């Protein structure tokens, strides 16, 4: 990992044009993701949630640090562990929660569920249940921006395991050859379900593969929202200037199991989990904000309180939302009203 000396937040404010409001907002969105995911765990344990959700707890700094660099016109392609990406892109919590519960008011009218929540109006080009399959889609979005002559960028979120899919190589190769405005963000949480990435991959870092495509490859502390923000900002600027794609590897950790049904204990040591939890992206950022006097205990407490309320409202909305009518299953296959 790059040995980056953590700067005082004030020097970052100067360097990257971060304002106090932005910093507090970064914190607030991380908290929003955490509480959203906690609520899902709660709904799942009460038997209110069909299927299995893949939780983003512990990885919040990545989505938040990356998406803070995107404008309304940019795009992002999400994954099966995608709630955090959507929340960071400003998606509606009520409609997200309703989708997680398979309800009519969900973003996808109950047809996508937790793994496929998408809001195309917010630039989310789908959330993918096939590991690595979003990478070429994001690359196409980058190609499209290039052909249309816009300065839009696209972020491809994917995990460490996806970096061993063929799509990773095929897509980054094309993006590099054609200098497409795509930022490849690898969320390396160390495990593909139960398999330790270190047992199936020879290199310590995934980002060094960028060398093979002659593009920048950056390793970053994925639990430090400002670090993620900083490196993404540089990658986005490069992309907007037509200088091509970047590969950012964010080192992080999946606090929970692969999904809500997996305790995540069989294949990893408690010690490891405990160490990573001490590096909680929310807790550490909170401490910095207070220590460096960007914010106060009271202010952050209030954000947490309000967020809790917001999440409760979303859950209540979702619980009260009706299940879709059976007929809904036959809609939306093709653009024409009647399916074929």
């Amino acid at each position, binding site marked *: 990992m790059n040995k980056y000396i953590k700067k005082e937040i004030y020097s970052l404010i100067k360097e990257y044009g971060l304002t106090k409001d932005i910093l507090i907002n970064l914190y607030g969105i991380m908290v929003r993701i955490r509480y959203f995911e906690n609520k899902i765990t709660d709904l799942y344990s009460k038997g209110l949630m069909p299927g299995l959700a893949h939780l983003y707890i512990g990885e919040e700094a990545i989505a938040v640090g990356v998406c803070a660099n995107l404008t309304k016109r940019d795009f992002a392609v999400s994954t099966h562990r995608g709630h955090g990406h959507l929340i960071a892109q400003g998606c509606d919590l009520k409609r997200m929660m309703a989708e997680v519960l398979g309800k009519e008011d969900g973003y996808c009218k109950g047809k996508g569920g937790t793994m496929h929540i998408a809001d*195309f109006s917010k630039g989310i080009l789908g959330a*993918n249940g096939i590991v690595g399959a979003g*990478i*070429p*889609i994001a690359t196409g979005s980058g190609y499209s921006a290039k052909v*249309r002559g816009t300065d839009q960028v696209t972020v491809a979120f994917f995990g460490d395991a996806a970096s061993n899919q063929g799509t990773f190589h095929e897509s980054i190769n*094309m993006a590099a050859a054609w200098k497409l405005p795509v930022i490849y963000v690898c969320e390396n949480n160390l495990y593909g379900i139960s398999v330790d990435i270190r047992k199936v991959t020879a290199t310590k870092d995934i980002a060094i593969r960028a060398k093979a495509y002659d593009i920048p490859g950056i390793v970053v502390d994925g639990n430090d929202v400002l670090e993620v923000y900083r490196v993404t900002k540089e990658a986005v600027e490069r992309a907007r200037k037509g200088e091509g794609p970047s590969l950012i590897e964010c080192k992080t950790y999946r606090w929970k199991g692969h999904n809500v049904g997996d305790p995540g204990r069989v294949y990893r040591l408690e010690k490891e989990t405990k160490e990573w939890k001490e590096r909680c992206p929310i807790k550490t950022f909170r401490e910095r904000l207070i220590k460096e006097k960007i914010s106060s205990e009271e202010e952050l407490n209030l954000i947490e309180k309000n967020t809790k309320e917001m999440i409760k409202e979303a859950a209540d909305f979702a619980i009260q939302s009706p299940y879709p009518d059976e007929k809904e299953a036959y809609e939306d*296959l093709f653009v024409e009203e009647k399916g074929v």
Partner: protein
Amino acid sequence: MKVKRITYAQAVAEAIDEEMQRDKDVILLGEDVGILGGNFKTTVGLYEKYGEWRVKDTPISENSFTGLGLGIALTGLRPIIEIMFGDFLMLAMDQIANQVAKIRYMSGGQAKIPLTIRTTLGGGRSSAAQHSQSLQALVCHIPGLKVVMPSSASDAKGLLKTAIRDDNPVIFFEHKMEYNKTYEVPKGEYTIPFGKANILKEGKDITIIGTSNQALKAQQVAEELAKEGINAEVIDPRTLVPLDKNTIIKSVKKTGRLLIVDEGYERCGVAAEIAMSILNDVFYYLDGPFERLTTANIPLPFSPALEFPVIPNEKKIYQRVKKMLIG
């Protein structure tokens, strides 16, 4: 109607050219579609005319450049992706079956996917088992894809223009053995709608459905049979998804007999699907069981001595019809 004589490959190129001319959002990507003008000469002149970004030579990465097409389609353009051999669809099957076909549905109708995937089918070129398959049944099986099987050059042109203008994903199968054949094609602008079968010849004794160029083979056989007093009705469904069942049902009710000819493998194939999908509607009108002529359930062999005997052809169609009618 004024006509001109051009090859099937030229008709395909014309369709793409006209649509690219008409709509700047139409772009083409695939292996060798650029400087070479396509492995089968179906994109000749387009690279020179529209430049390297609208006519893009891709690396040999079928799965990812198909996904690239999807990403392009989701963000405002109308890409055409060429997958050189239908056999290579298998490399792109995750993107086709799990992504292209599902993103719209999974998102509750938020996404629009104006993507055309052009590919080929057909044996007969001694290309052996990995360059000769007719895999239309595999994509027909996946909900969310329209599947087009043009027979003649004029159909290829009109149907391809419709495919490019469609806001849904379309898999478009061109027959490799037709590319160099010359056909009469209407001059000027025309399109052919999906879901409307073409009755190539009317008749009352038997219905023959042929997909892709098997429709043309069936038409030739029907003309021979007519000399013997057998009046076969020949139907080209043109699109398998959507399938014009009404035209087929109407025909079979009239003739009481049905032979389906499709170059795909027999097992779980298109012929079986067409037959079963109309059975309930025509059962009491039948004078005998449905029959099918397909490629045998074996990989396509290399030697012409082995390859031609396993693919449906005019002789086999003729013999089968005679057997069905006379025994």
